[in-house]
């Protein structure tokens, strides 16, 4: 489902004397259906960079990144957007939403953009928020005022609202209590059982051991390692 071959990434800092930073070279990764791969490596090794390249958020300098039939490195913006709408979900560490939009609408939005009827989308959003123990009293409020843990759960609900065939998870269990951590791990297991391919970053070792089939140390993709 997700297939990276020979991916490299450089940053050119035009406003700092044109310095070129090469951060990744020769990255290869294959994630078949129903498998969950954990990215590991020290902070700054390039775990998030790799996730962002898969999501099309960062531009790869070379190589191919295939998600389903789409090569993210060559796709037009609208093709990447269609991919993100239908196929590829992303739960980031940070919640980025339009201010003043209610939590229920934030979670339902991915479904609405797929053309799901408003009632149905809201029902599904409500079910997820309930499952993730967000008090119903908060559903009508904007999540921008929520605590870190609540925001994280809203983010997860949004990421799982649509059953994407491929998912990117950035620290999904960070800042969650035991109960909610259990709910999130359950959601991940359900997704795997449906055949979802998952690439994730988990600092929580127990969680990683439970849901991940493999670990890939991205230190191996650094230019130094490749050299």
């Amino acid at each position, binding site marked *: 489902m997700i297939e990276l071959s020979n991916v490299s990434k450089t*940053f*050119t*800092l*035009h*406003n700092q004397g044109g310095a070129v930073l090469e951060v990744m070279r020769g990255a290869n990764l294959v994630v078949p259906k129903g498998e969950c791969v954990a990215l590991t490596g020290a902070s700054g090794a390039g775990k998030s960079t790799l996730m*962002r390249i898969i999501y*099309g*958020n*960062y*531009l790869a300098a070379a190589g191919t990144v295939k998600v389903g039939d789409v090569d993210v490195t060559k796709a037009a*913006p*609208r093709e*990447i*957007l269609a991919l993100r709408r239908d196929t590829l979900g992303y739960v980031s560490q940070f919640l*980025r939403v*339009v*201010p*003043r*939009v209610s939590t229920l609408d934030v979670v339902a939005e991915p479904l*609405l*953009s797929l053309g799901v009827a408003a009632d149905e989308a809201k029902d599904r959003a409500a079910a997820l928020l309930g499952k993730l123990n967000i008090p119903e009293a908060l559903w009508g409020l904007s999540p921008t005022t929520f605590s870190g843990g609540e925001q994280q759960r809203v983010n997860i609900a949004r990421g799982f609202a649509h059953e994407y065939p491929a998912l990117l998870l950035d620290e999904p269990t960070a800042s969650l209590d035991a109960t909610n951590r259990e709910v999130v791990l359950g959601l991940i297991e359900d997704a795997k059982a449906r055949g979802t391919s998952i690439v994730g970053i988990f600092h929580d070792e127990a969680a990683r051991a439970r849901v991940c089939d493999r670990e890939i140390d991205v230190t191996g993709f650094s230019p130094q390692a490749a050299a």
Partner: protein
Amino acid sequence: MTPLLSVKDVAKHYGNHIGCTDVSFDLYPGEVMGIVGESGSGKSTLLNCLAGHLPSDKGEVIFDTRVDGPKDTLKMSEPERRMLGRTDWAFVHQHARDGLRMGVSAGGNVGERLMAVGARNYADIRSEAVTWLDRVEISEDRVDDRPTTFSGGMQQRLQIARNLVTGPRLVFMDEPTGGLDVSVQARLLDLLRGLVRDLGLSAIIVTHDLAVVRLLADRLMVMKSGRVVETGLTDQVLDDPQHSYTQLLVSSVLQV
């Protein structure tokens, strides 16, 4: 898929000064494109050329018309282009007073485009106007009030209703949230997002506000000195800018 709008090599000069030049892109149905750049970068000139408000020096602006398929709007006759401007196209001005008739009631403002395309039943026009006021969150009891009695945010929402009532497929927006305070901006942005999604609108939004395009635009075009220096998916351009000017622009945003 046929692009809704296909722009080829559009240029506009003011004497020796470049307004905009070498601009080409395709906009597909349902796509929202942001044009960003600092003042004087040529983004408003480009928007006005595309919308037919300014004559271009050269190039083609091909629109996929409902009846005749793709047609170069720059070669259209003026009546044809103005007809397009009243039906399939809409233009949202930065200042609502440029896009509204301030001496005419809210209902009349919304109804004008309907009457311009031949609506002649008062009750129908009025109920359509009320429906649209409701969609932009203006209550029915304001239908007979003039926009001069509205707040800035309401005026801007009224302008949007007035523009969308004939079901356009392409909306040009020039700094639609400029001049509004931030809380009003947020509400307007949410409204626009919802309308774009529900109506399947395509839009071209000119703004200098990167936060606005991040929320509204699918893709970005960055302009500097009349030229396009970078294009791409909105979050990719903002998070991994390639051109030196874009990097400067992104790093210049004040963090809150």
